[in-house]
């Protein structure tokens, strides 16, 4: 895939490059909201135009059509997340045929690079979930539930899969609980119902679900006894981590995924330079009682 690098150098004369971002995360998703903040900041810093598109639900067909539309608009670079390489292969191929350089963020990795992506910035959701499971096992959790608020979305599925695999390997067991992300009451009551006495760990995949899990454990008077951990950050979650109510929060610094992708692709579009790496891992990192307080401010600004 390095063949295009030389051809792209011809673009450096253009005044203001335009980059297109297409991801599978909806505008309403708190995780992707932070990615977008990184993108917007980088666009400002690098003085490039960036458009951000995402389907209204986890929908690979819609996403491929968004890529098609962006390719028709001929941007100077394309940043995509690739949760289903097979489904997006055709659209990515079209982008490559049109000579548009591609970076992948968040999801994609190896397979997308085979299809011609230059570089991947992000982390494997499976590995992150696995790291979380291992930490849970070390904390003595034997029976846990993984709260999935979007069954069928590959990122969430992979997180749970990694988590459960790690837990099982350590001799524990777990089950997936599916909840409705749009209703905190629903989430709280379902988590409450599923947290039977023998359950000693709850693992959520996002801050909203973590907030509902906190409320559920609080109402059952099990805040210290049942371990709670989550993916992704929010100020409330960090406060809870600082107070020891949450064991840890997995952070993949998705702000960097957006920021770095725009910076690197803008540099590449203007000057044809790119790091000589195949992937830049942005996570996982763990926020715990020790370092939570330091992160709260950044989270309030939508950076973590």
């Amino acid at each position, binding site marked *: 895939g390095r063949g295009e690098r030389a051809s792209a150098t011809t673009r450096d004369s253009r005044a203001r490059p335009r980059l297109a971002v297409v991801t599978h995360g909806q505008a309403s998703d708190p995780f992707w909201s932070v990615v977008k903040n990184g993108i917007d900041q980088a666009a400002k810093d690098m003085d490039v135009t960036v458009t951000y598109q995402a389907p209204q639900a986890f929908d690979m067909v819609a996403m491929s059509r968004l890529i098609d539309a962006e390719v028709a608009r001929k941007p100077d670079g394309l940043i995509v997340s690739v949760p289903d390489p097979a489904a997006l292969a055709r659209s990515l191929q079209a982008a490559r045929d049109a000579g548009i350089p591609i970076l992948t963020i968040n999801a994609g990795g190896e397979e997308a690079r085979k299809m011609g992506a230059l570089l991947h910035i992000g982390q494997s959701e499976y590995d992150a979930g696995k790291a979380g499971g291992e930490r849970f096992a070390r904390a003595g959790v034997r029976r846990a539930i993984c709260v999935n608020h979007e069954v069928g979305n590959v990122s969430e599925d992979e997180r749970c899969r990694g988590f459960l695999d790690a837990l099982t390997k350590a001799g524990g067991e777990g089950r997936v609980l599916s909840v409705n992300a749009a209703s905190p009451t629903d989430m709280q*009551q379902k988590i409450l119902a599923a947290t039977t006495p023998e359950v000693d760990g709850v693992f959520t995949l996002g*801050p*909203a679900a973590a*907030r*509902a899990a906190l409320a559920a454990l609080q109402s059952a008077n099990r805040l210290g006894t049942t371990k709670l951990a989550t993916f992704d950050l929010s100020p409330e979650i960090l406060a809870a981590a600082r107070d020891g109510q949450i064991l840890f929060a997995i952070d993949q610094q998705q702000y960097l995924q957006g920021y770095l992708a725009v910076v690197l692709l803008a540099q590449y579009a203007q000057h044809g330079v790119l790091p000589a790496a195949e992937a830049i891992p942005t996570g996982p990192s763990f926020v715990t009682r020790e370092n939570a307080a330091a992160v709260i401010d950044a989270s309030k600004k939508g950076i973590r």
Partner: protein
Amino acid sequence: MSARTWLARPELGVVAAVVAAWLFFAVTAGDSGFLTLSGTASYLAIAAELGILAAPVALLMIAGEFDLSVGSTMAASGMTVALCTTELGWPLWGGIAAAAALSACVGLVNGLIVTRTRLPSFIVTLGTLFILAGGTIGTTRLLTGRTQVGGLEDAGGFGAAQKLFAGQIGPFSITLLWWVGLTALATWVLVRTRPGNWIFAVGGAPDAARRLGIPVDRVKIVLFMTTALAACLVATFQTVQFRGTDVLRGTGKELEAILAAVLGGTLLTGGRGSVVGAACGALLFGMVQQGIVFSGVDSDWYKVFLGAVLILAVLLNSSVQTRAAEARR
């Protein structure tokens, strides 16, 4: 009321379905907490919120209209409360008042467009659904750079609001009281007052209603506004209880509310229905949802059970009604 009148009530079927669902889960999930006080409180909490939405939605459906913007009105009003308090520093009550004003406007606009243009309310409110959902996302991101807003507990008046909107009575949520009160009120309005009579007429035979001098448009507009205000109330419950909100809040609630109303015997085409039925429909839906979790069904198969129990419940519902109709003859 005589036995004959009881048999004629449209709620009979859904009540039977509720009892059957309760028995079913008492048997299959009784030992995992479904029967405990806190288990009962947990499905009642879900049913209460849905029921508060379902009551005005049922009235609106009896009057022959839909409101698909209920869910995004919830998102918008919850976010209004949160943004007014955390970003503008207003006291909580100010935020709630602003949210109520906003949702009343949404209902008014829905009602005005539907009655003035005679467009199907399905489409009009789908339009407002999109506009409100998008507006909530856009505004929140613009002001905070995030999609979740928390920290409501620092706002003025939070303590009182928490008692009123998110308090507990023993293991039960205070929303239960609101639910019972609002259901009683809506039932009284529907069957015992003039506007209630008009609601039936507006949905059952709009032309006849207009010819008899009933202010058809006004009835519909008021109902749209009531529905939006109920959405605002439920959003307030959630925002106060969880001390914050996010832009997704309420997504899909419009369909759940319609489902509860239809389960309770309200006709999709208007002209017939009952608020008590809608409340039972909400109870049934909440109990089934929660009961499946209690019975420990693998979440991969969760929806299969939800669908199957739903169909069984309506089958029971309709067969009870048919029997009752036969017994009455």
